[in-house]
């Protein structure tokens, strides 16, 4: 069972379009991160959100953490070809139990932005 469900799995859009990627779970996370990965390289951190309802902006990227800290979204405005890549969400579980501190990843969204 996938702890973090990402959707869509694939996204192919034209340059200039907007898009949203979702990351959902039935579990509560103490923090949630979004990463971007290029082929053949390790993922690189984009942002961390820790407070329910938190919204963070990184240029054309807007990240939101759900009020209950179970879900998150990544919105890209006016996508560019350089945004192409694999986007991964990852959650860190809260205090208590054997899962404390472990980082769990979603299955990823492959974004392709066409010129």
């Amino acid at each position, binding site marked *: 069972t*996938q702890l973090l469900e*990402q959707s869509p799995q694939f996204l192919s859009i034209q340059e200039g379009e907007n898009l949203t990627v979702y990351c959902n779970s039935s579990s509560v996370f*103490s*923090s949630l*991160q979004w*990463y971007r*990965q290029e*082929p*053949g*390289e*390790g*993922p*690189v*951190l984009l942002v*961390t959100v*820790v407070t329910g309802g938190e919204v963070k902006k990184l240029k054309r990227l807007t990240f939101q953490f759900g009020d209950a800290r179970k879900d998150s979204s990544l919105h890209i405005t006016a996508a560019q070809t350089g945004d192409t890549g*694999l986007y*991964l969400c*990852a959650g*860190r579980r809260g205090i208590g139990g*054997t899962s404390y*501190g*472990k*980082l*769990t*990843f*979603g*299955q*990823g969204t*492959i974004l392709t932005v066409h010129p």
Partner: protein
Amino acid sequence: SQTIHQWPATLVQPVGSPLSLECTVEGTSNPNLYWYRQAAGRGLQLLFYSVGIGQISSEVPQNLSASRPQDRQFILSSKKLLLSDSGFYLCAWVPGGEAFFGQGTRLTVV
């Protein structure tokens, strides 16, 4: 500054051969270290994590093992590789909530 090194970058091994992938971290002490496997550019599956020397937690039963012989060294091993062990292996250092990854090892078992 802290850096994480992982090698080799690519590896082609025959079925039944042993495996040893190494990950080291510089610039920090007692790091939390993780081994992930990624199939076909998709999500990362957590294989092992370690909070200190000799402390290994396994997430899924498999043909692989991990060891933490030194504070800043984390090793992924196998005695006999299977075809299904092919994939992209990533070592990660997690100082807080965020993960910093090595460059990854592309393993192809033939």
